[in-house]
């Protein structure tokens, strides 16, 4: 794609990437399953209503096939109800992972990888729609596009794109380009536009120049109008951070000119006070993620999706 042409980022070795992916996959396996179960209930509510209407209570018991499905190492996934009763709702889900240098420096890189592996595995197991993975920093790179199936070698190939070497964290650019990618994907989607839901999860240490916060806020309103949901997952590995370094405690100094005296005064504020994302969550341990992510998505569905019918 055009984004890849302008980048100077070199792909990491396939062997290293595969090794790393396998490591994180093993580490997050149980959590992926837990997330899958929770997301299934949230992302497919239309389906549940349909089953109740068409098949009465008998068919709903199929949810219990989750256990044999897990026991069969996900081979028996074709049993899932979605096959017999086609869902009207389909999804395009984008995972955007911060590839900037601060991720490596703050020690949040491995927590971001755990999150990426866990969430992408869960989504691919769910088969609710297409998945895209981006890396961002001073530029935006597509590590996996919506058109490519998320097969077993997709993960390791995605990992090749990440090295946490980008010298800037341009979240404005990420949001702007993500909206464009979503627009293109919506135009190409086979399902009717009304049944297509677009969701982005941004996985990052959450830190960018706070002068970007206002421009980002404007772009987020644009996204909302186009029914693109953007969730910001702040990975905050407090175990590897000094006191006061957690994004929750992080402060910033600004110079504010006094209108009367013309003097510049120092104002110190909490970094997160101007954070533009309405839907954000802070994760310091990947174990918390299935629960908090599910709660947040449920909230979003109640507020936005269900109210719009």
């Amino acid at each position, binding site marked *: 794609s055009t984004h890849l042409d302008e980048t100077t980022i070199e792909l990491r070795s396939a062997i290293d990437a595969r090794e790393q992916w396998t490591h994180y996959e093993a580490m997050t396996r149980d959590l992926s399953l837990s997330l899958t179960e929770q997301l299934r209930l949230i992302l497919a509510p239309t389906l549940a209503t349909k089953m109740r209407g068409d098949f009465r209570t008998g068919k709903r018991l199929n949810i219990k096939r989750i256990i044999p499905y897990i026991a069969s190492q996900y081979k028996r996934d074709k049993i899932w109800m979605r096959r017999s009763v086609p869902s009207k709702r389909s999804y395009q889900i984008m995972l955007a992972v911060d590839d900037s240098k601060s991720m490596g420096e703050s020690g949040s890189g491995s927590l971001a990888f755990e999150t990426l592996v866990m969430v992408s595995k869960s989504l691919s197991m769910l088969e609710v729609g297409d998945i895209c993975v981006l890396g961002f920093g001073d530029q935006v790179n597509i590590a996996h596009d919506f058109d490519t199936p998320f097969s077993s070698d997709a993960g390791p190939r995605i990992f090749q794109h990440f090295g946490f070497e*980008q010298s*800037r964290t341009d979240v404005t650019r990420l949001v702007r380009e993500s909206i464009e990618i979503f627009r293109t994907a919506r135009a190409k989607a086979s399902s009717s536009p009304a049944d297509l839901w677009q969701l982005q999860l941004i996985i990052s240490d959450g830190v960018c*120049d706070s002068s970007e916060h206002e421009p980002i806020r404007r772009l987020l309103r644009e996204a909302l109008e186009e029914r693109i949901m953007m969730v910001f997952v702040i990975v905050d590995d407090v175990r590897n951070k000094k006191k006061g370094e957690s994004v929750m*405690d992080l402060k*910033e*100094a600004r110079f504010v000119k006094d209108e009367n005296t013309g003097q510049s005064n120092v104002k110190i504020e909490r970094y997160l006070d101007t954070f533009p994302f309405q839907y954000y969550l802070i994760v310091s341990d990947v174990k918390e993620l299935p629960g908090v992510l599910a709660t947040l998505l449920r909230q979003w569905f109640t507020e936005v999706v269900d109210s719009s019918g």
Partner: protein
Amino acid sequence: MEDSIATATGHGQVQVYFSTNSPDIELPEEKRQLRVPTDVRRYGLSQILNSESMLDTSAPIPFDFLINGTFLRTTIDEYLVANGLSSETTLNLQYVRSLIPPLYEASF
């Protein structure tokens, strides 16, 4: 490329870690981490350190700042560019009481 570095850090911020060898002007641990504008010089940094939310000094103390043992004599932005650093890095700023008379402060 030079262009993009300039815009990248021009109106930007960088995270700094303030430290000192003088116990009487040491910041509490949770205040040592701070995001600051990259266009400040030692005077601006001094102002930040003296502010109410930081050391809350009754009379401003002029400070000098050392990065890797060298006195900061430019803006942080210029320092980053000159040293090939990005604003993604946390800068360790060691502060000391300035020996420069406060009168000449404006020239820095």
